[in-house]
């Protein structure tokens, strides 16, 4: 439960969620190819960044740096 209050977990959660939305939109939307590409790549990058932050929140117990 304490992990939910870790800032890295919150930031990770935010970017993972926004990433999933962008990735999903890139598959569902009927936009031009360029729009699909940028949303898809940004979605993937956001998800990777978000998961990395969540992973870090479960590491470094007791350490702050």
């Amino acid at each position: 439960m304490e992990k939910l209050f870790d800032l890295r977990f919150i930031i990770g959660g935010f970017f993972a969620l926004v990433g999933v939305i962008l990735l999903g939109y890139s598959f569902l939307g009927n936009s031009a190819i360029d729009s699909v590409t940028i949303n898809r790549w940004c979605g993937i990058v956001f998800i990777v960044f978000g998961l990395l932050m969540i992973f870090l929140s479960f590491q470094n117990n007791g350490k702050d740096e």
Partner: protein
Amino acid sequence: MNLQPIDYLIIVIYFLFVIGIGFMLKRKIKTGNDFLMSNRSIPLWITSLAFISANLGAQEVLGMCASGAKYGMYTAHFYWIGAGFAMIFLGIYMMPFYYGSKARSVPEFLKLRFDERTRTFNALSFAVMTVFSSGISLYALASLMHIILGWNFNVSIWLSASIVLIYITLGGLTSAVYNEVLQFFLIVLGIAPLVYLGMQKAGGWEGIMQNVNDAKLHVWKGMGSASTNPMGVDAFSLIFGLGFVQSFGYWCTDFLVVQRAMISKNLNAARRTPLMAAFPKILMPAIVILPGIVLLALQNKFTGFELPKNVNGAVDYNMALPLLLQKLYPSGILGVGVTALIASFMSGMAGNVTAFNTVWTFDIYQSHINKNASEKHYLYVGKATTVIGILVSVMTAYVARNFNSIMDLLQLVFSFVNAPLFATFFLGMFWKRTTSTGAFWGLVSGTLAAALTYGLTVAEGKGGWLAHIHEFYSGTSQAFNIAGIAFIVCFLVTVIISLVTKPKQHNELIGLVYSLTPKQKDSAKVWYKNPIWLGVMVLVGMLILNIIFY
């Protein structure tokens, strides 16, 4: 700019997270110290990112992009000359005094080093400055949202103010700092794709070099004279006015940023906060200035990238970033970009409000109105001050809407207040002979000298309300020179009065003056924990960047 439901969804998610952080931290806030000082318990990586994020407000994100389009690479001086050195100086030399003295605010340090009147003068001017700054941020946000998204001015004002109010009132400074870190990542990750798309469309760096006037692609070329570079500033004014006075005055004495380092867990972390922050800071031009330069290349290659005119008929450079968002971002990532823009405004506003409530509660209320109340009492005062601060900000935003020129006036007053302050601190920390009377009258006369210089000089049609004895090439040059003169006057008056008044006893100044304080050896063996090594690395980084973009 036409937002789709997905864009609004991302904005709503951001608002929910921001408020959620406030609710999450609410249970940890029990005393005034928790609310206003985060109980000095924040980890280094958070304080470092909050340190630069507190400065990453609307002026930074929109203003630097606008300056990038107006002055080109010369704008990078605000980072490589106007930030790096001062951040190193703060971390290595000044932070031991701030943190070691146990002062809770910059004005409180002034009280310990000098006296109550110097503290009160600084606390009052700082409190007024921050709350009006917050209002200007709010006004700018609402105006921009109205112009680019067609949102109602009143709704934008009250919605943003309410969200900032909720998360600060619930979680205090910790909530503001946590949100600043989230906002930092959002601004960087939300604008980085714009830089990539813009560069790609412009034909990469090669395309930029072919399509942008060469005079805007350097940082030092033509700096020998104010007339031979787009910024209208000569090298001396730049180095002394920006690199020394303005930069050190802001980064080393403005409580808004210094507060982020003062809430670190220990002295070593407090010293490393500005140094760690300096690494991303010197790279920020890639996110905030480069888009403006990319826009210049796109204007030369394509149609439809022309900037609109403002009410005075001049090119409105502040629209550079919104224009790029509109032209280059499709729905989806557009929501992220607009959210990043909103985040920058809210970050600036929250930073000002948290600094305001700390200074008001500790340096004005506790010092002059109610000295010995309980911690619980100061918690309520801090919360009440937050509400009042936000309401005054909202009022300022409405006043600025009706009297547009008040924004220029307020910005100007801020420069009068900040410019001489570094002289007071510099002398106070490094010259034991500096007296309280000298410091107080030095500050007052430095501030008056700044106002007088503005009244006697003109630049871009501004200033000269007393007489017209000199005209500067640009407003930037005028600002640097005003800062320089204010510093010199404050410095000289402080020295002269100190020489004829009685200084404090040496034993009262231990821990407050460099020469009277035992030197602490930093036992950190690892390079990344050693402030000196970190400072050297930042210096090398700045040197390399200055050489590359000479």
